């Protein structure tokens, strides 16, 4: 508003000669406020099938100019959104709740994974009947800082196993040691390990009753208040992208493989098939892809409260917005 008014004042005091130049300058200024603004979407991992929908999204059709920033181990997307170094970012539900309880006003918009693919994989040769058996011996690589790890510790105890840091996508140690188990994504590491000849058994953390929304696009409360239309356009574009990725993952897989050649194309193909059931559920066929419910948020909030990850319950309705 302020910028527009200043521009009008300048025009009145201009000579004819300068008029053409001023007109183009004014056009430029007007252009700035109307043309697609560069929007950054920060991923929390390398380009992989969980981001297929984000890579497939027809942003331009929705008047958006989006730059996708690939991430890696420990990319602090939730802090980046809060700090404004990315307008949108990929976070997981539990991470978002913890961030909110620390005063970082971030909220979820589109949950790719309706159910968490987080799992623990072990060698099938161990013939473990359940996770309880996995925690009876050997080594387990997991991120101790994550709430789910403490839930498992409470449930099974870590007394009999050696807990080591999660190798984060690397399966070398796993292939090397038949008693090694590790935190993984149902849709990623088990496929890679199988490809290398290992016989793998996968135990999902969601089956243990801990199931936050993940691969979720989030933004800050402030950005949503100031740019409600941009946010709505972004969600619409991503929802369309997700649909087209589900219908035909091949072209987008090829695009992502070019950006992340360390994941072979057949693993991309396998993973995009494996994740279907996590993306499309009865819930989403009723309410749309990516949509979320208050009940699910409530469940994970009270679990985090019980685990001591948040000092007090945060209101579930402030954590997300279905657009």
């Amino acid at each position: 508003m302020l910028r527009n008014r200043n521009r009008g004042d300048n025009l009145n005091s201009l000579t004819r000669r300068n008029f053409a130049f001023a007109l183009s300058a004014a056009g430029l200024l007007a252009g700035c406020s109307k043309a697609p603004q560069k929007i950054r979407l920060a991923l929390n991992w390398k380009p992989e099938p969980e981001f297929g929908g984000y890579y497939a999204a027809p942003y331009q059709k929705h008047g958006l100019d989006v730059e996708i920033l690939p991430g890696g181990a420990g990319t602090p997307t939730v802090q980046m959104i809060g700090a404004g170094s990315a307008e949108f970012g990929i976070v997981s539900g539990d991470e978002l709740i913890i961030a909110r309880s620390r005063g970082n006003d971030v909220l979820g918009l589109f949950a790719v994974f309706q159910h968490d693919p987080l799992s623990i994989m072990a060698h099938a040769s161990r013939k473990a009947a359940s996770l309880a058996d996995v925690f009876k011996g050997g080594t387990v690589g997991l991120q101790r800082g994550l709430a789910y790890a403490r839930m498992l510790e409470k449930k099974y105890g870590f007394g009999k196993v050696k807990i080591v840091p999660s190798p984060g996508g690397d399966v070398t140690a796993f292939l090397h040691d038949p008693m090694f188990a590790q935190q993984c994504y149902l849709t990623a590491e088990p496929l890679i390990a199988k490809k290398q000849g290992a016989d793998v058994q996968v135990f999902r953390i969601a089956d243990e009753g801990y199931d936050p929304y993940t691969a979720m696009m989030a933004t800050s409360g402030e950005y949503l208040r100031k740019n409600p239309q941009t946010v709505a356009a972004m969600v619409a574009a991503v929802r369309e992208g997700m649909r087209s990725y589900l219908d035909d993952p091949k072209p987008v897989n090829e695009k992502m493989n070019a950006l992340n050649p360390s994941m072979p194309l057949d693993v991309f193909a396998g993973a995009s098939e494996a994740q279907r059931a996590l993306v499309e559920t009865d819930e989403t066929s009723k309410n749309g892809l990516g949509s979320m419910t208050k009940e699910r948020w409530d469940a994970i909030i009270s679990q985090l409260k019980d685990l001591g990850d948040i000092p007090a319950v945060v209101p579930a309705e402030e954590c997300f917005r279905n657009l």
Partner: protein
Amino acid sequence: MNAAPNRFTRAVPALVPLVVVTAIAELAVRADWVKAYLVPAPSSVLRAMIEGRQELIDALLTTSASALTGFFLSTLGGIAIAVFLASSRTIQKAFYPYAVFFQTVPIIAIAPLLVIWFGYGTRTVIASAFIVSIFPVIANTLSGILSTDPALRDLFRLYGASTPVTLFKLRFPAALPQILTGLRVASGLAVIGAIVGEFIGGQGLGSVVDSARTQQRVDKVFAAVLLASVLGLALFGLINLVSHVTLRRWHASEQE
């Protein structure tokens, strides 16, 4: 009587930046110029330190043991390699490029292999500290040994001193100031190497940092990082002490 105020006045220049920076950080967070989830207030770092003191002290001790062992090994190894390299021009030409390898090895990239070779835990951490800190010891020791005063070398030759005698009585002592410079650089690197090793191998301050980071506990991350710096400073102080004891009688750097 004079010693106490003297020591105090000497500490003042170092304390001023600390107080100023701490005060600004505290003010910036309290006034909400900076969000607490991006930069923690010094008071909350202190609180995290007090609350987590048992865990942090245990972690500090574990990291100290690994960093010290890694540093000790790179001191011994680095000096031995430098002496070997100094023994002839040909040997130097043949092997020095490989010593440079240690300088450039991206520790994060080979970390999963370190875990396979040395297993999870202390040995991987020590290996990481060693690999990261050995090069400055080699480089500085070598340059020290090679720059012995030629006049003194001639003197030793004149008196028919054997190669080992020349090495231990002349070249090595003369190289000491440079060796100690190498060790100063290596001491800080050993702490960094240990913490990086702990990210992958588990345990210690590295593990605390990793876990606090996933829990978005910036205050605890800073608390652990501060302790790592204290460890680095302590090692640095130790080398300065050795430097003072060994050099004060003859080297300009230790004479006021």
